[in-house]
């Protein structure tokens, strides 16, 4: 504080304390009124309605977006339900087709088997018949062979060929035992 009163231009009374200098009051009141009213008009006419409008627009935007989101959600849910339904339908249809096919194939296979079995049975029967015929003829041949063999053995043993009816009778008796 080298020069304590350097800035108080007039040391006498009327510069005592600036906020209380009443000679400035008229100017202060004039400009305060002007600026305050101006600011009030600017705020109440322009600024505050605009900010309120911004809030309202934001609120509306949020509500609209939420409603749209709700709509999309409902649509996706119904689409999901439709998909589930068509999936179930397709599954049921596939099941039906599979069952039908399985039944048809089973029937066809059964028919095939039946036919084959019949064929085989026929063949078997034919084979058995031919075996039996063969055996009968073979058995017939066996008697003849036995007679021939017995005649040959007898001829060798006694040097005389027995008559065919004797041999046949003897073989027949031997076969009966």
């Amino acid at each position, binding site marked *: *504080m*080298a*020069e*304590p*009163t*350097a*800035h*108080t231009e007039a040391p006498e009374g009327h*510069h005592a*304390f*600036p*906020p*209380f*200098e009443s*000679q*400035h*009051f*008229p*100017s*202060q*009141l*004039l*400009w*305060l*009124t*002007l*600026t*305050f009213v*101006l*600011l*009030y008009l*600017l*705020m*109440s006419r*322009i*600024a*505050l309605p*605009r*900010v*309120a*409008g*911004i*809030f309202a*627009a*934001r609120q509306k*935007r949020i509500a609209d977006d939420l409603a749209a989101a709700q709509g999309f959600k409902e649509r996706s849910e119904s689409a999901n339900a439709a998909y589930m339904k068509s999936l179930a339908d397709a599954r049921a249809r596939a099941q039906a087709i599979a069952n039908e096919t399985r039944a048809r194939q089973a029937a066809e296979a059964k028919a095939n088997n039946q036919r084959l079995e019949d064929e085989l049975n026929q063949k078997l029967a034919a084979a058995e018949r031919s075996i039996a015929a063969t055996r009968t003829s073979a058995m017939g041949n066996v008697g003849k062979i036995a007679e021939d063999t017995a005649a040959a053995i007898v001829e060798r043993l006694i040097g005389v060929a027995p008559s065919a009816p004797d041999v046949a009778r003897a073989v027949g008796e031997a076969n009966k035992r």
Partner: protein
Amino acid sequence: MTVDPIHQFAIQDIVPLFTIGGRHFAFTNSALYMFIIVILVSALMIAATLPRAIVPGRLQSAAEMSYEFVANTVRASAGTEGMKFFPFVFTLFMFVLFANLIGLIPYSFTVTSQLIVTATLALVVFFIVVIYGFWRNGLKFLKLFVPKGVPVYILPAIVVIEILSFMSRPISHSVRLFANMLAGHITLQVFAGFIIMLAGFGVLGWFGAALPFILVIMLIALEFLVAFLQAYVFAILTCIYLNDAIHPGH
């Protein structure tokens, strides 16, 4: 550099205008700062909200926060009906807040450190309360001075006290703001003066100057708080007084 702590409150004529009936009118430094306040508040509230962005930028956010802050204050202390005074309270709050904050810039002028300014604002509030109170409630407004549930024998004393406290409202309302601004700025200037004084004493003085320097930094932070707080107090007291005009029954 001014070391005189009072000098910052001095009003200087920039353009002398006219004299009516011995009253001198001039465009002063105080008037200049009043216009700066109007310009800055308008820049925040009008220019920054021009984009009307759904997702606000920083300044628009600040404007919206100011709006909501004051709107909530009015709604909380004066009710929904008090919202008709919202533009007035908002203007008052922004005017005082910007006056206080601009005053913290070194070498600037603090409009609210002038008692005539704060007294005018407080008287405007006072007369709005009185006029609106009688206009809305008629003579029932006088119930404001007759609290319910008070025994009859002390009622006269209570009524006198209530009337006195009501009449002293503009004084406390205006002096609180004025004195806070005045005292804060004087304190800042005095401590800042200490820095310069001590630093003039050479190297040892520099160390000595560190103490007031730290104090000034802390005081500046405090003054920012006070600047906001006093604007808020001014606005909320206005709301409470307006609430009396709207709902005079205690």
